[in-house]
């Protein structure tokens, strides 16, 4: 555990000296700010953050892979992966620390959006329950996206490829359900598949959070899928042993 903390601390400090991290953060805050201003922060609109929480699901598809793309690919490109993995730490500790580092950076990136809550409180009278559950949803969503981004980053030495792979997987993961519902005809045998795909889709499990509903099934979905992506990342690292 001590080593995970040590590695996590290094990850976080690496983010705060990296220009790309600031670019991603700025990009995220600008886009989120614009959508908040257009969708939620309007005269006459309810003092809530539902729209912005829902839109975040899409914004983050493009922001998080940029945050995580360096994580493992840069270690592989520069060769530091060799010193890292020949130190007395396990592959699991390394991946968990990489995940925590990126996720904590993501949470730090999210922190300035709390200003929206303050603005709503100043100009209106928001309900704080859905805001809190919305942020819980964002934390879980971010964990899943970060773990997928990390997995993409473990596959290649090239940061750009890592980011694009991350986008690809996340778009599928987030959007496949609704898309398949419109495309696939509802024959009986296929409904099972359709339900399965819909249940595997981020959208199905995410939207409830912004409405103030915290369903344990949704929480388990995010935690389990995050763990699975991290497990795959560990396996990719281990694959150097049999490739």
């Amino acid at each position: 555990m001590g080593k995970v903390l040590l590695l996590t601390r290094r990850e976080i400090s690496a983010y705060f000296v990296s220009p790309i991290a600031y670019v991603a953060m700025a990009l995220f805050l600008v886009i989120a700010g614009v959508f908040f201003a257009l969708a939620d922060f309007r005269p006459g609109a309810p003092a809530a953050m539902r729209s912005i929480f829902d839109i975040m699901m899409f914004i983050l598809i493009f922001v998080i892979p940029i945050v995580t793309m360096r994580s493992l690919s840069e270690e592989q490109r520069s060769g530091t992966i060799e010193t890292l993995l020949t130190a007395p730490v396990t592959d699991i500790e390394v991946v968990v620390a990489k995940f925590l580092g990126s996720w904590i950076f993501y949470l730090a990136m999210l922190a300035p959006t709390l200003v929206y809550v303050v603005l709503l409180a100043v100009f209106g009278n928001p309900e704080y329950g859905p805001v809190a559950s919305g942020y819980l949803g964002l934390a879980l969503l971010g964990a899943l996206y970060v773990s997928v981004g990390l997995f993409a980053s473990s596959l290649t030495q090239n940061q750009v490829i890592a980011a694009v792979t991350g986008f690809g997987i996340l778009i599928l993961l987030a959007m496949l359900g609704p898309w398949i519902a419109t495309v696939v005809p509802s024959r009986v045998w296929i409904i099972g598949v359709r339900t399965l795909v819909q249940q595997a889709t981020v959208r199905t499990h995410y939207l409830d959070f912004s409405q103030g509903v915290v369903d344990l099934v949704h929480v388990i979905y995010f935690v389990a899928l995050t763990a699975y992506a991290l497990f795959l990342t560990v396996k990719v690292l281990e694959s150097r042993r049999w490739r």
Partner: protein
Amino acid sequence: MCAMIEVENLTKWYGNTLALDRATFSVQEGQIVGFLGPNGAGKSTTLRILTGFLPATSGHARVNGHDVLMESLAVRSSIGYMPENVPLYPEMRVEEYLAFRAGLKDVPSAKRRATVDRVVERCWLKTVRRRLIGQLSKGFRQRVGLAEALVADPPVLILDEPTIGLDPTQIEETNKLIVSLGKKHTVLLSSHILPQVEKACSHLVIIADGQIKAADSLDELKRRLAHRQQVVMELRTADTGAGPAEVGRVLGQVTGAAGVRTEEVGGGWLRTIVTPVADADLREALCAVVAHRGWQLREVRRLAPTIEELYARIVAGEADAGKEAA
């Protein structure tokens, strides 16, 4: 004395390419061993297997008594490893990086400060300890890599090309440092340039095409080479009218001579180099022939055996060179 590194029939295939072919050697405690071979001979592969970064296809390797595959963490704890090209995090400061690595290598946090100070002192990094690694010159980066390998005071040091890319002064300094480390640590360092390791190492393991061609102490390798010393003579045949071809023919007939090379060096003088068949000193026999023919002689000497020669011969793929030494 016990073996700190034992390698037994180590074989590594990359797909269909054989990188390491039943390599066997051992390194005793306290030795500084040079692991020598041309680029692509399998040096880095062997070192990566020893440090647990890659698994071998077959065969065994033990470091400090632990199997590299089964007890990987114990092996990694007893090794300080500096990979080829010294990968470092450019965004970290020197002492920050060393403290981080000390922590990863189980140096208790109370001792980290003192540990970092010790290696900074040892590797002459005092002037740059607060600098960003990305801004350091190649020589300093190399020293940071060495300091990192030393930080947890491991019994075994594995250094992949520690002097590559350094200028001659830096190579000298690095060699000195490595020699001073040999008192407390067992060192295995690789190189493809012989003179760089000859000064620092007491033992050599020579590898080419994935096979261990020779593994012994420097002195022993030299002694084994000595039995095939060439004789160099400078002589003049002007008065007798014999040309270089004639000289070559006559000297080639001396019992025990395997080959003769003759070249003109000016002023009517010829330099001939006679290679003996086996363990024979041809000087007397050759001088007798020269005297008999009435040729003038101004120099006779045996070529001092050098490790370069053996290395060059092995690397050039001369079939019997390796066997002779092994």
